[in-house]
């Protein structure tokens, strides 16, 4: 792998969500609006002209108030939201930890879900079947492997999701507030796992409201405000400025 090539490039990215002007979006109204040539969607710009470049092994924290576009930026990096304008390049395997438990199916057992979520993340089912015991062990769910996931608590689901996403060392890890789940001991354990991944050269982007943790894990921090980059720089500096502002 060429280390000089940045593993993440965000170049002038803006993103607009489409919000229907009328709360209802029935076919009849659509046709009426179409005939009247009225615009039926309003654009809501969640990101304005965001630039970012991260090299292999760098760890970036994104902070900002609610609605600043942090999660949207994560979705753009994860490749699920194509930017409206601008360009995104992400090199290598990506583990998005934006609630991976969303890919789970409540009717399936923990064991089946490990294989399913792994496959959704692009890992081979055969590999995932081999990894089932290790993943369950780490998540502390070995005794619950063969019961449907719908019987799991939210914390159990989140633990399982975290364990699956971090089971392999990805080239890029995207963490969106997942560390706010779980009890104290699990949080410590997952923090340690993120540190291990970071030492292994994984590029990490994390979003969190837990400023102390961002300060501990990240050297660089980006402050987003209403979709714009307000500041990027050394963690202590930016976080101090952010604390002052809010």
């Amino acid at each position, binding site marked *: 792998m060429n280390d000089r090539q940045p593993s993440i490039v965000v170049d002038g990215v803006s993103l607009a969500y*489409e919000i229907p002007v009328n709360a209802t979006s029935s*076919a009849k109204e659509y046709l009426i609006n179409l005939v009247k040539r009225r615009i039926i969607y309003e654009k809501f710009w969640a990101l304005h002209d965001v630039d970012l470049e991260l090299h292999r092994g760098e760890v970036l924290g994104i902070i900002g108030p609610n609605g600043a576009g942090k999660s949207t930026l994560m*979705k753009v990096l994860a490749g699920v939201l194509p930017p409206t304008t601008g360009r995104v390049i992400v090199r290598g395997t*990506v583990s998005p930890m934006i609630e991976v438990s969303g890919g789970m199916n409540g009717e399936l057992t923990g064991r089946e879900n490990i294989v399913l979520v792994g496959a959704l993340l692009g890992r081979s089912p055969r590999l995932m079947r081999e990894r089932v015991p290790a993943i369950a062990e780490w998540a502390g769910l070995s005794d619950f492997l063969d019961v449907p996931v719908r019987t799991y608590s939210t914390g159990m689901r989140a633990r399982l999701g975290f364990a699956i996403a971090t089971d392999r060392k990805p080239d890029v890890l995207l963490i969106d507030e997942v560390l706010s789940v779980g009890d104290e001991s699990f949080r410590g354990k997952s923090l340690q796992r993120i540190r291990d991944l970071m030492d292994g050269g994984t590029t990490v982007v994390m979003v969190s409201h837990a400023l102390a943790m961002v300060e501990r894990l990240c050297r660089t921090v980006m402050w987003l405000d209403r979709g714009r980059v307000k500041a990027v720089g050394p963690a202590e500096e930016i976080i101090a400025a952010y604390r002052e502002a809010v």
Partner: protein
Amino acid sequence: MVHIRGAASAPSQPVYDSAARRRPVIDEVRTLWTHRSLIRLLVVRDLTVRYKRSVLGVWWTLLNPILTASVMWVVFSKIFDRVARGESVPFIVYLLSGVLLIPTFFGQGVIAAGSSLMGSGAILSKIRVPGEVFAFTAAIAAAVNFCFGLVPLFGIMALTRTPIPWTVLALPVAIVAMLMLVTGVGMLIASAAVHFYDVIDFTRVILQLVVWMVPTFYPIEIIPDQYQIFVKLNPLYSYLQLFRGLLYRGAFPPLWNLAVVAVSSVVLLVVGVWVFSKSWRRVVVKL
């Protein structure tokens, strides 16, 4: 940013480039191939989850078409019994073959593929998985369901001493053609459903009409000659003729039926995939 396509990058390393140009249809087919193990898992999930809480479980897949056909048999056997003489097969075989192909494979498949995008919104907005995977999974699941349904159908044919001709060996052709049609039509509906959800309910109603306008449980002869053209204009009629021809008549249908099947399956698949590739990402962009 010219250096980005430099030869230095390892070939095995995946690169996500939002500005990468997509070749319509070709890239979608490649996507399906690279995601084949995921699709297999999702198909199994589709077929098993539905019956997870039931006692009979996956056996419902076999029972469903039999029960549907039995109900119709009770209702219609007296009225349409003469079809059996015209067709030289027991009415139940005529009925079950129609029910399996049209309402089960086509009808349920189109609805499942059509609602696949809305149903997978939670995953699509979190993990980068191509939307095609979910639409195709739904269509494949319908095809597998249909193949399961062939088991009791052959059972009934054996029980009623209906001769099974060698042309059944060509059934995969009919199944693949129907799979292409279901995928294409399902993807068109899924694309429309992204814009307004009503499309799914609307489709259910239209499907009823389209499905019952082909001779699933009645002989085409009961329709006056001058109106038969409307039945024959329905492409599904040609699929049904192909299926029944191979299954028990021991012959391919007339050439025009084959032409309708070939053209409609290819055209609708290509158009469906193309329209779908343009619109599925909007599921995530829409709030």
